[in-house]
């Protein structure tokens, strides 16, 4: 067989990203419908339904706005978290154990490092789609102002990645999916409920508030809400962004180790 000039793949992480795109081309329709229905249902039930009760008891509104307007940007950040958590658990298990598609990648010139970055780039893309659809629904509900609220999309992506990077590092150490349930039950769901999405964190007992500050979702919700309500000032924003970036950086560093250990042994 005629040997061609061997070449080392130039942008290996981009090739990994392409793999995810190719798989998504087969499933995007269902995924988009879910991304659309989820905010519609939540904003209808919690924002309009529950919101009517809340607003009736708070003539001044919550943080000066109706419950719907208060809630919507928090839900946006939360849905980014949930999407990121899902994309960083079961698909990783599939790549490592079930279908071993990551194993197939590293037998080619692609290195584990590129699998990590390609995966994160893909999650960032998914988050952009989910957050954009969500924000579109918020505009339709009158829960955010166009175009100033658009900045909430990159904030939501950042929030999602702050979960995706550490969770995928953990997923790469797992032999099966039994611990993923625990992540959702004892990690994602409590954060969803307690990190300021449904009510301001200041409503929590004083000793619980510092715990909320330590979670990425608190900072994501603060950014998202600040963007949607136009109340964000730059120094506060930078602190929140800094915390999220720290989570992402630690998650990437851990992923580089765990993916390598798993794929190259």
């Amino acid at each position, binding site marked *: 067989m*005629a040997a061609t000039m061997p070449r*080392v793949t130039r942008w290996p992480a981009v090739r990994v990203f392409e793999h995810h795109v*190719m798989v998504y081309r087969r499933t995007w329709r269902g995924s988009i419908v879910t991304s659309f229905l989820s905010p519609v249902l939540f904003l209808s039930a919690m924002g309009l339904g529950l919101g009517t009760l809340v607003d009736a008891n708070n003539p001044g509104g919550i943080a000066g706005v109706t419950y719907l307007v208060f809630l919507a940007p928090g839900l946006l950040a939360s849905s980014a978290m949930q999407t990121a958590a899902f994309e960083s658990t079961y698909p990783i298990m599939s790549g490592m154990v079930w279908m071993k598609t990551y194993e197939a990648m590293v*037998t*080619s010139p*692609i290195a584990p490092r590129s699998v990590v970055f390609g995966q994160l780039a893909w999650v960032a893309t998914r988050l952009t789609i989910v957050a954009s659809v969500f924000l579109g629904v918020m505009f339709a509900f009158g829960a955010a102002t166009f175009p100033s609220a658009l900045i909430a999309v990159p904030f939501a992506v950042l929030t999602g990645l702050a979960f995706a990077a550490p969770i995928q590092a953990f997923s790469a150490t797992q032999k099966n999916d039994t611990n993923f349930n625990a992540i959702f039950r004892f990690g994602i769901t409590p954060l969803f409920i307690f990190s300021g999405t449904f009510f301001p964190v200041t409503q929590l007992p004083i000793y619980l508030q510092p715990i909320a500050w330590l979670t990425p979702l608190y900072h994501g919700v603060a950014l998202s809400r600040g963007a949607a309500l136009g109340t964000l000032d730059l120094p506060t924003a930078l602190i929140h962004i800094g915390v999220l970036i720290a989570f992402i950086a630690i998650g990437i560093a851990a992923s580089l180790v765990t993916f390598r250990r798993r794929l190259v*042994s």
Partner: protein
Amino acid sequence: MPNEPRPALIHARALTKRFGEMTAVDAIDFDVAPGEAFGFLGPNGAGKTSTMRMIGCVSPRSGGTLEVLGMDPDHDGPAIRARLGVIPQQDTLDMELTVQENLWIYARYFDLSYAEARERSKELLEFVQLQDRAKDEVQNLSGGMKRRLTIARGLINEPDLMLLDEPTTGLDPQARHLLWDRLYRLKQRGVTLVLTTHFMDEAEQLCDRLVVMDKATIVAQGSPRQLIERYATREVLELRFPQGVQETLNGKLDGLADRIEHLPDRLLLYTPDGDAAAAAVHDRGLAPESVLVRRSTLEDVFLRLTGRTLIE
């Protein structure tokens, strides 16, 4: 310069792999020449897969020297892998993609353009006789078809060296023969094949040269014919006795063969002339239930070297 020796494609000296306390590969030496079909024959757990993974640059060695295509896997992993075709023991196909998409994306991993990817996929699907299934999802393929698709995928970068880890394990005889035929054609085209197997017939069919591995070491190497000549006789007489009789034969077969192996269900008499030995057994008044004369195989070599059968 027709007789100038060509450099080895794989060169290993004292190659060692340890996982914690366990030594999976214990200081083995071997060379693989361009164009040859080289086999690692041995039972499960002998260290074959660990060796293959080190050659494939997905498992750093714990000690010794290893050169693949003239490069060091520790430093040039991606450059080496760019020229390898790897058929892993377990399929790593993407079940969510179609047959041709699996080839396309793998081509992209090697930096081929989509146009090249499509063209080569078409040729390769014909080569492995899957052209009619190009648009089917992989999960609908039979085991043999998946294996053939994996072979096609491994050829997408026109590799200089193919690594096949247990290529036909789990396949039915028909699928296995079809696969052997394709591998034989690759060999004829000059592709260097390195394979592991615990099937002695596979090793005999495909390998120009092989090493027999057992318990992390190489216990013998040579061509299948050399190994048989060195470690076995030309023929084997297999005797099966009625239940309980085999244990009572103490000494009664002495002198009838160069060597006698006692398996739980039968006796193997190693002898240059099986028919003569069979006649001599009858002359001694013994009445085995069944008598079979056959040529020696690598199975006999393995039995001689390790005292065990390949598949237990």
